[in-house]
């Protein structure tokens, strides 16, 4: 059973979103997602300063099995990326909700974050998918 922290927001495409105190959000992929993908070998991060709208593919997580897109959970501008992952992509497997974060983003509309799935809804989604 994968870990689904209560205090995060989620997307149907298995990204998690954490509301930070400074108004930005931190984005990563869920424990469920990293479990399905298997051992990470490469993480392709967006350029800081680039802008994306909700649903754009903005990063690629490449495991031994597949290279998968990461979709932008809310519209906004990339503020910072987790460059440590370029050398140590396995951190996404080891600590998906912590050191394995992918990027920080400044949302255009903070209301969009509230529209994402909560932990309960995401848990249901993963159960439906695996049943």
């Amino acid at each position: 059973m994968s870990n689904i922290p209560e205090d995060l927001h989620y997307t149907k495409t298995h990204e998690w979103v954490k509301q930070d105190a400074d108004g930005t959000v931190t984005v990563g992929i869920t424990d469920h997602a990293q479990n399905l993908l298997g051992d990470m070998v490469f993480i392709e991060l967006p350029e800081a300063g680039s802008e994306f709208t909700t649903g754009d593919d903005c990063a690629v997580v490449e495991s031994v099995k597949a290279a998968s897109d990461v979709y932008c959970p809310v519209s906004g501008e990339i503020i910072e990326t987790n460059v440590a992952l370029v050398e140590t992509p396995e951190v996404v497997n080891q600590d998906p909700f912590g050191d394995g974060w992918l990027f920080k983003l400044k949302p255009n509309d903070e209301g969009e974050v509230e529209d994402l799935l909560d932990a309960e809804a995401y848990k249901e989604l993963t159960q439906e998918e695996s049943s």
Partner: protein
Amino acid sequence: MPFIPHTEEEIQQMLDTLGVTSIDQLFDEIPAALRHDKLENVPTRMSEMEVSRLMHERAHQDRSGLCFLGAGAYEHHIPAAVWEITTRGEFYSAYTPYQAEASQGTLQLLYEFQSMMTQLTAMDVSNASLYDGGSALAEAILMAVRANRKSKARRILMPRTVHPMYRKVVHAIVKNQGITIEELDFNKQGGFTDPASLAADPGDVTALVIPQPNFFGVLEDVDALTDWAHQHNALAIACVNPTSLALLKPPGEWGQQGADIACGEGQPLGIPLSSGGPYFGFMCCKQDFVRQMPGRIIGKTTDLDGKEGFTLTLQAREQHIRRSKATSNICTNQGLMTTAATIYMSLLGPAGLETIAANSHANTMLLKEKLLDLNGIKAVFNRPEFHETVVSLARPAKDVIDQLAEEGILAGFNLADDYPELGNALLVCATETKTEQDINEFVEKLAQALA
């Protein structure tokens, strides 16, 4: 690997299992509007005997004889051993096998090919080949658009000194992908892309294509062009003749940082002219861009017992996994041609290849000198050349080519269609296969044709 067709009985069993009555039914989900029922220009069927006869007739349409025609495909001597070994049963397949790791010999050969290509180009990595030079350049452009994340413009600068057919292939492959190809004109005295003519402030450029030697056989100022590209955050794509690399500075050493991607036509490395194909394309790049490189890449590894083994690597971005987002929709290679090229390079070694390049250059220079002694022939460009040169004639090149063909000589490539501004210009080539006697015969016949 044996080819075992399914029997009627087996096909019926499979259909029964699937619960359908015919194979056609499996394609029902493709809308009728998208399906071609008939290919009107393709005959329905021919027997083996008819096909064999047709192909013999077609083969006779090829003009053969003393060949001074290059223009992208070059007649080099191919040691008999190359194809003797290539066509052995162990090698004789056009494909990387689907169960790739079961064919360690094939994978090792491709790995050796990649190693040789990286040495020749001084680049970090090579793939296991692409279809041909033109499509390799198109793939290199698509790769540059993916790899250059500083550029948003999807804008490629393409010198007119790049092979005209490559430019057409590139256009066909990239035109519907939102990529702009801007052509750069050439310096009329030098026949090269003058770095001084490039804009000081070009805006957002994704990549610059740099041919070496260029289509006219002329050497480009590759260092200045590469540095110009990098100064403007553009990638430098080298499009090179592999034989020439035995003598010329390899793309990995161009300018301050080296070219980012190197591609080209592999035919000169042991592949016969054979009516224009099959040939193979090659592509190498810097380590930083390896994940954007299309095609198959073979890696060396160790198995559980610590023994050396070869494997397909970096498959995660190929189309069986990434579908429409794959690095390429041509996820295969020219296995048999690559086999021949690897054996050719192994037999020659670096010194052998250098001798061939040097002799081809010397023969072309000798030919040029003798041609320029004739009345009615002038040099067109004043820059150094590798193994081709452009001369202008007192008569249209097409007429001269036709006349010499009647006498068993392939006189060269007529540039009038692609470069009308050059007048009656003829592109000629003399590889190491030509003797001084051959050259004298050509010069003599050409003098007669111009008299």
